[in-house]
């Protein structure tokens, strides 16, 4: 499996660490993990860094996850990078809104490592 550079966006530092650990437990080799506390911070990081995967919460201060996805298309380095929403907001309207804005997948908290594998690995082109 090729190593992956991931950006994890969540206002909870604890949750960012849990997501990173779950990715490793899912068998994903993380060569680099960038962390941002909101969408605006994440956009700033993406202007300077190339990543292969973005995992993003929805409810965050400053800039939420849905607005972040909308603005992602303005960043050249982020084009084509799969975005997976990881959030407690599991409603149908949120899922539809996130997917229509460009998210590739949706993972509801609480989650298992198996669910992380199921929702993330397919977008990395890795056989599960």
């Amino acid at each position, binding site marked *: 499996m090729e190593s992956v550079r991931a950006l994890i966006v969540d206002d909870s530092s*604890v*949750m960012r660490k849990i997501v990173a650990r779950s990715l490793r437990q899912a068998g994903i080799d993380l060569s680099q993990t960038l962390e941002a506390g909101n969408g605006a911070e994440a956009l700033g990081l993406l202007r300077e860094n190339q990543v292969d995967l973005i995992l993003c919460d929805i409810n965050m201060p400053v800039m939420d996850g849905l607005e972040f996805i909308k603005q992602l298309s303005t960043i050249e380095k982020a084009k084509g990078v799969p975005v997976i929403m990881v959030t407690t907001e599991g409603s149908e309207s949120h899922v539809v809104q996130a997917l229509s804005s460009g998210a590739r997948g949706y993972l509801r908290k609480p989650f298992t490592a198996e669910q992380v594998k199921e929702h993330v690995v397919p977008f990395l082109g890795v056989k599960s």
Partner: protein
Amino acid sequence: MKPATEMLAAGHRHENWIPLLDVAVREVFELMLGCHLTEWSPEHDAVLDLTAMVGLAGQMCGLLSLRCDQKSAALMASKMLGLEPETVGPEMADALGEVCNMIAGNFKNKISGMGNGCMLSVPTVITGTDYNVYSNADSPGLEVRLLFENEPVIISLQIRG
């Protein structure tokens, strides 16, 4: 199960949501902390001096709170982060807030028709026991008492619907 809109409109007292709240709490602890919560009993009483709160707005308005003591909160954070409880620092409040947030989200997603119509606030955590909460709830609150590693945790939901 009746849809949430029907129950809220009819002024039901929501007691039949207690099992859903109980399951929502247990699932979060099992999936995210790898712990099975056990039944509460009075001899496990303690001073619950940490309170995490998440607001609900929209179709169902209210406040979900999670109360525990510092030892339990440190243990939650240690299990979430894979650290020794003694080494947990400022992450403790963050972890407690996230647990509360996930319980609130998990609970509302279990109620038919509520997922789309109810939004959650970001969590707030306060310390101490000498405070009053003034909510705009218009019905008796729901409460679930359980034991986490033999320490009490109390989850309460005040609803205005």
